[in-house]
């Protein structure tokens, strides 16, 4: 058995070695945008959980800054209870929005205060309006942006780029364009954006929001908070997933051990061990 495990794991190591080696060359060959620096995230790792205070602060940044341009179509306001708000607080947040509803008995559409079952209303009626208001560029929906910008590497985990780290890098990556760089009209230079020219002007500045919990609202702080919030928005079931995963793996581990000994016993007469 030990021999077999040794053999199988050697084979797997050899295969992984080939893949790691070859993909190392692959990465060295390309890429003009630097790798975003890594941050510490409470929600990363097998036991990671969301930092609720950061989620609430991040939600505040989204609501007060980003929401004027970016929609969050897939997130229902009822799910804000995940951020640690109680039922009344969620109702109060929903009420702050005007939501289109209808038609009523007269066949007319009307606007009413939001309810927890509503989704976040989008800032623009359609993509054309959004482009018209943003110099021709479309601000993407942010519901899945954190997962759409992650680049995970199975064979070289240390090279994995989390979407959250990219978001922080993007939001803090504004800089003066280097000498000779042609910047288009209405564009800004950003170190971490592909091609370095982005149609979103730096959205955050010092003390742009006033945090209820008194945390100083530096650009870095707000970026990290909104990145945490946007990761939650893209993977809201992360905590349930890891919790169930732990139970499943623990069960399977015990089952495997029991079946290992059952199998050994059954084969004892054949193998004479």
């Amino acid at each position: 058995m030990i021999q077999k495990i040794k053999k199988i794991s050697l084979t797997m190591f050899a295969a992984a070695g080939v893949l790691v080696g070859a993909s190392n060359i692959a990465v060295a060959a390309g890429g003009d945008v630097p790798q975003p620096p890594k941050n510490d995230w409470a929600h990363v790792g097998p036991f990671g959980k969301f930092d609720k205070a950061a989620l609430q602060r991040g939600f505040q940044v989204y609501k007060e800054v980003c929401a004027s341009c970016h929609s969050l179509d897939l997130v229902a306001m009822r799910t804000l209870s995940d951020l640690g708000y109680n039922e009344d607080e969620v109702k109060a947040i929903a009420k702050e929005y005007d939501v289109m509803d209808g038609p009523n008995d007269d066949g007319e559409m009307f606007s009413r205060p939001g309810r927890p079952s509503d989704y976040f209303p989008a800032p623009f009626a359609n993509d054309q309006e959004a482009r018209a208001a943003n110099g021709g560029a479309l601000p993407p929906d942010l519901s899945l942006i954190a997962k759409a910008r992650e680049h995970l590497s199975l064979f070289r985990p240390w090279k994995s780029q989390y979407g959250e780290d990219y978001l922080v890098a993007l939001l803090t990556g504004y800089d003066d364009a280097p000498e000779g760089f042609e910047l288009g009209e209405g564009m800004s230079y950003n170190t971490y954006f592909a091609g370095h020219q982005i149609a979103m002007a730096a959205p955050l500045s010092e003390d742009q929001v006033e945090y209820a919990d008194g945390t100083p609202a530096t650009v870095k702080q707000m970026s990290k908070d909104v990145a945490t919030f946007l990761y939650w928005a893209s993977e809201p079931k992360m905590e349930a997933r890891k919790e169930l995963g732990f139970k499943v793996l623990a069960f399977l581990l015990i089952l495997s051990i029991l079946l290992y000994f059952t199998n050994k016993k059954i084969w004892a007469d054949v193998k004479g061990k």
Partner: protein
Amino acid sequence: MHLSSYEPKNPVMKWVEARLPIGSLIYGSLGPGYGAPKNLNYWWNFGSLAGLMLVIQIITGIVLVMHYTPDVTLAFASVEHIMRDVNHGWMIRYLHANGASMFFIVVYIHILRGMYYGSYKAPREMIWMLGLVIYLLMMATGFMGYVLPWGQMSFWGATVITNLFSAFDFIPVIGDDIVTFLWGGFSVDNPTLKKFFSLHYLLPFVIAGVVILHIWALHIPGSNNPTGLDMKTKQDVVPFHPYYTVKDLFGIAVFLLFYCTFVFYMPNILGHPDNYIEANPMVTPAHIVPEWYYLPFYAILRAIPNKLLGVVAMFAAILIVFFLPWLDGSKVRSAAFRPLTKQFFWIFVINALILGVCGSQPAEGFWVPLSQICTAYYFAYFLLIIPIVSRIETPKPLPTSIAEAVLAKKKG
């Protein structure tokens, strides 16, 4: 090998058995009546694992369909509805998406096991070819399934792959219409999605049918084994139950540990991030890559500068494997006794992995010549190395029987 027959003891089972001999069927194919070589190693666990994966894909797939909407305006949102609102929907979806990868890992190992131990050789040619039919159907099923969530990679992957068929536009009359027919229109759009959805639901059941034929064919000669020798006496075999039922169950538990680590702790690592962006025909992703399990063939496709020849080479790369039983002229099955064949086999495996990496990279720089060298080795392996080496190599001395091989191993 037949060991014993089913004798129902309980009157109900006797009644049933006289009318529908299902007890005999199970007893004789998975039970104590079926004798399997006593020396099978853990590489023989991957057949039952493939069966398990098919069942898991069908069950999770049917649950997904209860909540999924095959329409270009709703498909992406309906998958997110599964992820966010359906009870444990995230788990079902991650089991299915990662399940496809696991299915392919298992099947690749299963196929390579067959190649190493010569399981394709007489009298098992039919088992081998039916297995390859299953693999082809899996490729089609996985490709069409990947289109369903209607993300950017779904859309652009479907566009690139279906466009390959335009290489056949020189065929008179139907040539120009093949791609239009596949699309159900003039681009990948709603009719394509609906068509792929319907076929993605159908094909796994076709696979299940071919799996039954595959196992039926297997039960004629019985399993091959690491020595490649035939089973001759009862000393060579053990009853399938309990020996291999329990060993397979142990394999399943360990494999589920591996599978569930992906599902619960890194559910998106095998996927492409762009598939979390809804399909947009106006925006082409920076580079379009298929799912990892197609990458070696994708590399072969792009290694050849001519489109038609590239497509032909890609299909040929899979079809050639059907002929392996006749390309290999050796009298001995197992590579354990064919030292040269063994070395070329491992080079083949490494070569295939490198082809996979080539397929994941943009077709430029030194990746192009590397893909070409690897493609050349791939075909040379089947068309030159195997046919020649198998005919000139002197095999190592074989044990006289499976029982003797087991005894020799026990002694050390």
